[in-house]
């Protein structure tokens, strides 16, 4: 168990290094001149030289990377050459929005998906076919398009929910919830189907195992066999899905935050990309990677709790 966590942390460290290095190398290989971009109208060869020196742009790329890394480890992600804002502060301000989206979506997805999966494993028939249909739709509908349609229906045509924006939880919990309904619905739809299918398969597998026969033969109630025994066994493969879907979810936030004009990290990434604001997007990549790492770690711990074979003796 401890070894598992250690291994995961090691992989994570490598991953973060790799991703940040990759973005650095890309940036170095790219045409364009950051110092020149920043100077804009104030360009003069002398100013350019000074600024480039100050930003370490005149040094080899690996040295630049070492500088960035050293500062990043101290929590300093640099500042945006476009807006001049501190990247770390900018990200910290926007993180709650994206985290709200991710946490709510994951909860909704897992709860509804597992419930549907269990239902279709036990009842089969019509519910099973409905799950198949929803999963096809969830797979095929582009999230940002679905978001726009939801806005057209539930924010413009029948104004039930706000079309755009985000309300901080601390300001107004109800407003926070209302502002999240449409984005979360958009993000959750494809995931629900994935969870439902996986849960159904895992449940059917669990229900066909020997111990289910033994328990039923010796009088365990149907509800207990399904919900206590089969579901706990089925949860083991399903939990790993949370890790896999969270990566996709982060991609989804980029589109969804753009559609709903939510001041989160995904929107920041899109905006930074448009402006070629490298330090900002680099910071977002690192933070997103850390989120994935954290989710995977949580999944590992949950996995170990559910599966006694992994637990420390």
């Amino acid at each position, binding site marked *: 168990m401890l070894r598992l966590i250690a291994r995961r942390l090691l992989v994570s460290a490598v991953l973060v290094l790799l991703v940040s290095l990759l973005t650095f190398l890309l940036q170095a290989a790219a045409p364009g001149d950051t110092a020149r971009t920043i100077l804009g109208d104030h360009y003069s060869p002398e100013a350019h030289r000074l600024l480039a020196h100050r930003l370490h742009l005149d040094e080899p790329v690996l040295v630049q990377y070492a500088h960035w890394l050293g500062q990043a480890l101290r929590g300093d992600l640099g500042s945006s050459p476009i807006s001049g804002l501190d990247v770390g502060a900018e990200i910290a301000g926007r993180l709650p929005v994206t985290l709200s989206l991710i946490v709510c979506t994951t909860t909704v997805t897992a709860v509804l998906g597992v419930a549907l999966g269990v239902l279709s494993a036990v009842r089969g028939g019509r519910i099973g076919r409905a799950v198949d249909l929803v999963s096809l739709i969830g797979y095929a509908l582009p*999230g940002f398009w679905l978001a726009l349609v939801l806005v057209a229906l539930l924010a413009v045509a029948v104004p039930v929910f706000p079309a755009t924006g985000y309300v901080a939880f601390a300001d107004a919990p109800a407003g926070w919830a209302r502002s999240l309904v449409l984005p979360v619905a958009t993000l959750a739809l494809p995931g629900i189907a994935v969870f439902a299918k996986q849960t159904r398969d895992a449940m059917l597998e669990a229900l066909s195992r020997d111990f289910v026969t033994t*328990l039923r033969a*010796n009088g365990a109630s149907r509800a207990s066999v399904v919900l206590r025994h089969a579901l706990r066994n089925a949860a083991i493969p399903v939990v790993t899905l949370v890790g896999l879907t969270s990566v996709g979810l982060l991609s989804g936030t980029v589109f969804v935050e753009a559609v709903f004009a939510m001041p989160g990290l995904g929107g920041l990434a899109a905006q930074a990309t448009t402006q070629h604001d490298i330090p900002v997007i680099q910071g977002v990549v690192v933070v997103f990677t850390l989120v994935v790492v954290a989710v995977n770690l949580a999944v590992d711990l949950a996995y170990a709790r559910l599966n006694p074979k992994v637990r420390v003796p």
Partner: protein
Amino acid sequence: MTELPSAVRRHRPAPMVRTVLRRPAALVCLAYLALLVLASLAAPWLAPHGPTATDLDHVLTGPGAAHPLGTDNLGRDVLSRLMYGGRPSLIDAAVAASTVLVVGAGCGVTAGFLGGWFDRVFSWAVDVMLAIPVLVTLLVVLAVVGDHQVLAMAVLGVLVSPGVARVVRGATLAVRQELYVAAARVSGLGRRHILVRHVLPRVAGPVVVQVSLFAGGALMIDAGLSYLGFGADPPTPTWGNMIADAAAVTDRQPWLLAPPGVVLGLAILACGVLGDAVRDAGAGRSTTATPPAPRSRPSRSRASRPRKGTSHPPVPASRTDSSPALLSIHDATVALPGPHGMTTVVEGVDLDIGPGETVGLVGESGCGKSVTGRAILGLLPGRGEITEGSIVFDGTELVGADPRTVRALRGRRIALVSQTPLTSLDPVIPVGGQIAELVRRHHGGTRRAARARAVELLRAVRVAEPEHVATCHVHELSGGMAQRAAIALALAGEPDLLIADEPTTALDAGVRAEVLDLLRQVQRERGLAVLLISHDWKVISRMCRRTYVMYAGQVVESGPTADLLAHPRHPYTAGLLASAPGRAAPREPLRAIPGTVPAPHEWPPGCHFAARCALATPACAAAAVPLLEPAPDRGTRCLRHTELGKGDDRDRATAVRS
């Protein structure tokens, strides 16, 4: 070229393309995708208007004669823009998909085929890369290189490759380990030859599935990027920026969202369905690759079996004592769903168990012993059902009874101990918890009382340190310990009848004796009746006073165990006894029975044993053999049982049943 072993050639896959094309859904999807490609290629000739031709007099018209799909906020024809806009989307998706094909599938096949260090490095790299947030990394690329969408899609392909590569590697590994590649390697074929001729064709299916599913995702991401403004610059249409344009005027003309969204959604759907179709076709092919099964026989004709209806004389009491049976099975016939439709797997079984009696049920595996046990509990697999006969437990008819009646008996009156203790307990809940759950279910009480009772039960089945074992998970226990726990579980409801289905088969010889002793002790202490299902004569002779022998779904012989061992009245029993390795003093030289048990759908109309019987005569195969009674308390389904027991004076009694 080296000739392949014939086994190798026979397993060549049937052409997959044909299998896929036979599916209507796949055809529709292919047709739709082809239509999209054609329409976007031919847009300059087919489109009714230019993609950027504005007409400010007719903006946001909605569908109409002049503009079949309406016009946008600049009066541009939506249909024409859709056609022109298809080209970049499709090209981008193709770029991404080809990248995945080359990088992902390539690495996967290589890693799976080569194995060794390459495979280890590969697996590690995949682990790391699977956690990269794809889209944001893609945005970094776009931020650096500018709006270069083709390059971005190639990068997308690389980023997604690890997931695809992992699946493909698994498929390659499976193929590599299959017999025929091993055979090809032995026969001295070169690696490249094996790869090209044998591995690649078999891996092609999974690769196509993965790439096809991904192509759908690529279409979606491509449109998304272009919606965000990273695609072709306006006014050049793409599906993504058409959606963005439509979004700006949702309040005035929501219709505009529909055309690009639906076209795009259907394209993604087509990729997905196509992938599924290829996967299903692959699954279908592997089943058709097995030799064609013998023609399915309709459910056994009732006439071919001796009918024992209402006019039939009462069942002779095979039990010696005259007290009413606790369990009485009469003429029970069970059908299970199988590859040949509903198939009769147990036929006309008669079996009685008295209170506190231990009765054996012997036979080779596949004879219907376990199914008989499950039928009593009403736990037949799938849609299995008891098609005929009756099962009476303590005066209650169970066949056709309300499911609740049977359910109420489980655990409280009839319990089950099954073969493999390590899989017959829930692996994720401590054994004590499982026993306590059943204790509470049957007797109520507090959680704490139930837990205490569970420990007590574990102590009763002679588990050392029952308090500790109660907190263990099944994988922490030895086989013998787990089987004791399983017996404790079965005793939780204090049943009257225990069905023990091969309770010692999976155990080591030493432990086997202990568990048998335990079963006997429990049986005596609690006055339990036990139906002991086994194929081991040693177990049967040690435990059971009376025994039933099953062969191919029928009880072929029954009687007191000692009598049956000494004077078998059926050639099958005799052969089984002679083959039994555990038999103490074989009176005849060991001789195995030739052949194997016929599968249920292959049962002959006459004696089921005829094909393997040394004594068989034409009369045996002519008609179903009824259950004869050669002596009091004895039953046999052999027409020539007298030949077997020659010299035995009890042979003269040949009362004929039916």
